[in-house]
């Protein structure tokens, strides 16, 4: 069994109004020193096999084809 964590974030340069709103809310709560917030998504994916090479290939394809919109998002795959 392989468990992977895929993190999808907005590319640099793509405006993130949700991140801005979160940043504003943190300030409202009194947290000081926050210089920026960018939000994203996390996917924990369980595979039913132990073939690491196959997992890496499949997970990259999953990101390209569905999990990330590569027009606006970057992704990172971590096998845990």
């Amino acid at each position, binding site marked *: 069994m392989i468990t992977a964590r895929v993190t999808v974030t907005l590319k640099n340069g*793509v*405006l993130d*109004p*949700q991140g801005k*709103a979160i940043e504003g809310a943190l300030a409202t709560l009194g947290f000081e020193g926050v210089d920026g917030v960018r939000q994203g998504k996390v996917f924990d994916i369980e595979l039913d096999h132990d073939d690491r090479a196959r997992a890496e290939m499949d997970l990259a394809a999953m990101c390209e*084809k*569905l*999990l990330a*919109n590569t*027009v*606006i998002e970057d992704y990172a795959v971590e096998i845990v």
Partner: protein
Amino acid sequence: MKTAIVLLPGLNRDRDMIAAIRTISGQEPLTVWQTETEIPTGVDLVIVPGGFSFGDYLRCGAIGARMPVMRAVADSARRGVRVLGVCNGFQMLLEAGLLPGALMRNASLNFVCRTVKLEVTNADTAFTRGYRQGQVIDCPVAHHDGNYFADAETLARLEGERRVVFRYADGTNPNGSVKDIAGIINADGNVLGMMPHPENLIEDAHGGADGRPLFESALDLAAA
């Protein structure tokens, strides 16, 4: 002209679109469910209507765009069949790769539901020849994710090839869309995606009929 309207769970403007086609063409459109793998032969116009396909889970239109019917829509588009995507339909055409760019959360983070002004920035397409070049029309919008984005290279190509067909006019950009882009067309000129809802402004009872020429054009009913 025969029209087919794509149906997916979570859409909510499909009936508006069916009513618009029936009213304008006098013909009942076909409907094609998400699991279908082919658009019926003889269809000249495929419409992907608005709503929230699959609850817009993951990203707006992301799941809907990967259903079998959207592969069939792509096949039809390649054969030259006209394809119109409105609102969630536009989001699906982008997610399916039929049009370039992406639609992100509105810059205000608010759902917007109001009538905006649209400038027809290219009246030489199969969908817009019923309008005058530069004409400013009314059109309703109702969306949470209409903030169009594309990289600089893509934007330059779209502008250079006159593929920005509708732009929000008179300061009415409701969503922060780059260069006020409201609707774009593909390079072959047969696939149009737009956020506003022309199907909701086609008769006096709607408060105006500025959306009607779009359908009359796409259905070859407009006076040339």
